[in-house]
């Protein structure tokens, strides 16, 4: 479903991603793991087209390398970006409306919205609050709910559990499992390695911009070298 070939991301003199290739099959859940600065976020940004990169990204068999981010989103790829990135100057309700932008001509926006408000009840109480004044965790919930409003076929989550209380994290991982069951393809960037591997089918471990290890999640979970790899031991 998603094929990344030989991806290189540079920021001026810095090379953050050095020729990474990743493949995610339809309906698969794949985890991207690695220490700080490994290049995970850079990969995600390149896949959705937010940062310039070289290499090839194709989605659904179609080369999307030259598409703009919005075109990629219209092709049903969606990202929950790192650092929440809620629209601080809009209310929670407005954020969610914008989340459903690609499906603006469809009818049941409200049904979708209610589903996520049920999952994050605190958001329902905050519908008319400016998103920028939400607590950190509330913003994270909003970012996830907003992304889900577009009903993607490929969902990329960059550290979704960041700043969330354990109860909510558990709920999100439950939901990921649900989504998986409904056939959505998922790429999951997580620090919370064990939990990520528990829901993932396969995983890639990165450090300093290259893939150090790749394999089935179950295998990795049992791998004693994992700890080493994930903190970036060279």
């Amino acid at each position, binding site marked *: 479903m998603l094929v990344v070939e030989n991806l290189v991301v540079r920021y001026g003199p810095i090379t953050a991603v050095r020729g990474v290739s990743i493949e995610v099959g339809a309906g698969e859940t794949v985890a991207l793991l690695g220490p700080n600065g490994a290049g995970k976020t850079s990969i995600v940004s390149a896949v959705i087209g937010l940062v310039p990169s070289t290499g090839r990204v194709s989605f659904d068999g179609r080369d999307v390398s030259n598409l703009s981010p919005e075109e990629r989103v219209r092709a049903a790829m969606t990202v929950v970006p790192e650092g929440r990135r809620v629209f601080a100057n809009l209310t929670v309700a407005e954020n969610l409306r914008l989340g459903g932008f690609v499906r603006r001509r469809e009818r049941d926006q409200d049904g979708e919205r209610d589903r996520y408000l049920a999952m994050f009840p605190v958001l329902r109480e905050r519908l008319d*609050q400016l998103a920028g004044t939400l607590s*950190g965790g509330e913003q994270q919930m909003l970012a996830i709910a907003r992304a889900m409003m577009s009903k993607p076929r490929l969902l990329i989550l960059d550290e979704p559990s*960041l700043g969330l209380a354990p*109860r909510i994290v558990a709920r999100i991982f439950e939901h990921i499992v649900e989504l998986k069951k409904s056939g959505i393809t998922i790429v999951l960037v997580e620090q919370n390695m064990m939990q990520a591997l528990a829901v993932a089918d396969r995983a890639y471990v990165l450090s300093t911009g290259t893939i150090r290890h790749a394999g089935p999640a179950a295998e990795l979970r049992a791998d004693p070298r994992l*700890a080493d790899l994930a*903190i970036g031991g060279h």
Partner: protein
Amino acid sequence: MLSVEQVSKRFGGVQALQDVTLVCRPGEIVGLIGPNGAGKSSLVNVVTGLIAPDGGQVRLGDRELAGRGPEFAAQSGVARTFQNLRLFKQLSVRQNVEVALTSGHRHRPDRVAGLTVDALLAQQGLSDLAEAPAGVLSYGHQRRLEIARALALGPEVMLLDEPAAGMNDQETEALALTIREIRDERSLGIIVIDHDLGFIMGLCDRITVMDMGRVVADGTPEAIRNDPVVIEIYLGTVH
């Protein structure tokens, strides 16, 4: 010693803090946990003077901090990190730390005696990045820089708002180690907010639990771990 007494704060329809009372002694690490939106960051904001409480007191030693603005709190010795990362993005990593250090030099020279930028950066593993602009660091590195910057102020009390967010287990463990080291070295009071229970339980001497703006429990890690209320509101049944 930092003492917070009966602090309340309301934002429009949200009662973010309600009669919150809390102390943090020198050399003590206090954990602050609670569901999202419980009011933890708001409490930090009140203590650091970023918001004025509707009522109640915040004292550091015999200085009243509430409502006197963030500069006053900082100059009195309260340092913090930001949950949403607020680095000086255009300045270099080194300068980020320098800002706090010079301010510390100015106001509490004895507390910063012996601190150097290089040592602080080395402690956080940022030496190689010293000349890079802070804005280009990865998320995890930015968190560490936040901590280095807070330490450079030479604080009496340090409030860490989710310092381990975005770090993996090993990094978190290392962070816990550093925090403890800092406490021992400089005997400051530390309040740590985080949602990583392993981290909090392992690190803190005492834990305060908040929910809906109130303190709902307070005690040793052991007691908190088994507190049914905490399990109910925070951990959820799954855990």
